[in-house]
């Protein structure tokens, strides 16, 4: 049984069909990188997986159970599905530590002392244990995204979603975040990433998904897809991202 099973998803905003018959299985421990042009439905796909957007047709099963539509049941499922967003959205009025302990203490009823230990542990995984008492405004964009990863990890999720988390960063800060992602992938975390970092996708992903016009256009091991794209769309996309100035 796959950890996550998407079957025939459809999502439309008005008459605009953003997701069209999307099916995808993600096995436990698998790293799936989703690529595609902007507007191809990648971000919407991720947002549907943790219920931030409601699908119009199809089904989402997480650990064999259908993803609830909302309310407390959806929150229960979300405890196991972490997400990190493109925008820098740490809570600016809380310290790094409180950003991370908030979920465990409020949602999971973990005692504060134990939550603090979780926070420290999560910060170690992103190499930021020295920023425990800093506030988000005192951190660089790359550091903020790493704290956001730690915030999600402290919930001890079984699936992690990453929505273009390096896209809002200055180029020199991308590397430190990608390094953390690679380490996390090696640790066996199940991950679905929407990304524009083709080098990272090629090195780290088990499965590459190319989305086009709201559909899964091509899917397979990254090396194969990069070496021999079957469709013209993927071929031109790869050419465009690898040689952006031509």
């Amino acid at each position: 049984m796959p950890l996550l099973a998407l079957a025939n998803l459809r999502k439309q905003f008005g008459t605009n069909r953003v997701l069209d018959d999307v099916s995808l299985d993600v096995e436990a421990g698998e790293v799936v990188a989703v690529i595609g042009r902007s507007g191809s439905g990648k971000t919407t796909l991720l947002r549907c997986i943790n219920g931030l957007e409601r699908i119009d047709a199809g089904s989402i099963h997480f650990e064999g159970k259908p993803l609830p539509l909302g309310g407390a049941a959806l929150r229960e499922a979300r405890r196991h599905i972490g997400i990190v967003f493109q925008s820098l959205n740490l809570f600016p009025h809380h310290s790094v530590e409180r950003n991370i302990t908030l979920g465990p203490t409020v949602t999971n009823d973990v005692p504060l002392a134990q939550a603090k230990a979780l926070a420290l542990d999560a910060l170690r995984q992103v190499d930021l244990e020295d920023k425990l008492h800093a506030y988000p405004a005192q951190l660089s964009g790359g550091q903020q995204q790493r704290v956001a990863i730690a915030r999600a990890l402290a919930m001890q999720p079984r699936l992690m979603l990453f929505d273009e988390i390096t896209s809002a960063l200055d180029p020199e800060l991308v590397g430190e975040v990608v390094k953390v992602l690679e380490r996390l992938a090696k640790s066996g975390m199940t991950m679905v990433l929407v990304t524009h970092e083709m080098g990272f996708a090629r090195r780290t992903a088990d499965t590459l998904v190319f989305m086009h016009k709201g559909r899964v256009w091509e899917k397979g091991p990254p090396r194969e897809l990069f070496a021999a794209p079957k469709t013209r769309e993927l071929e031109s996309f790869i050419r465009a991202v690898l040689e952006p100035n031509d």
Partner: protein
Amino acid sequence: MSRDFDWSAFLFLLGALRWTVVLSIIAFVGGGVGGLLLALMRTSPYRTLRWIASGYIGLLQGTPVLMQLFLAYYGLAVLTGLRIDPWPAVTLAFTLYAAAFLGEIWRGAIQAIPRQQWEAAAAIPLSPFAQLRHVILPQAMRIAIPPTVGFVVQLIKGTSIASIIGFVELTRAGQLIVNVTFQPMIVYPIIALLYFALCWPLSLLALRLERRIDAALGIGQPA
């Protein structure tokens, strides 16, 4: 027979100033509770709640406080069938009035918090109440401090209208003193100064509060 403005007259004004303060505090606290409720209704996902709240706010903001005061005064009298004291009427009127304005100020502050903050809170996954309590309201509060203090200053000065239905607060007390001393150019400047002494420190306090919060967040400081 007239008498001069003397120490005892001044003490009389100070005594009445107390009622200006008490009325302002009640209106602010009661209006604060109502205003928070209205702000949450205005920003809730339920259309009916939004509709009720904006209707209330529109009505109260679109009518003069004086009318609201008269309505509360005569309305309470008609409803209870008694000739009522101005006290309950002025507290009711100013509380309802403050609720509308605070509700609108705080709605703006809540809506100024980026959608991404709600989503980040929903992702960890806080309940809607916990999202408000831990993430949205603390940030909205920072934004709301200056306009809230601005409104409280208006509220304090606005309570002078209560004098019209015979509620003896600072302004009404001043009129009474003027009636016996015939010295308006002594009495009214003193009253103006007393209002100023109430309102000015509030503005200063708000500024300090803002700076303290900014400092705690590590923002707004010169590099």
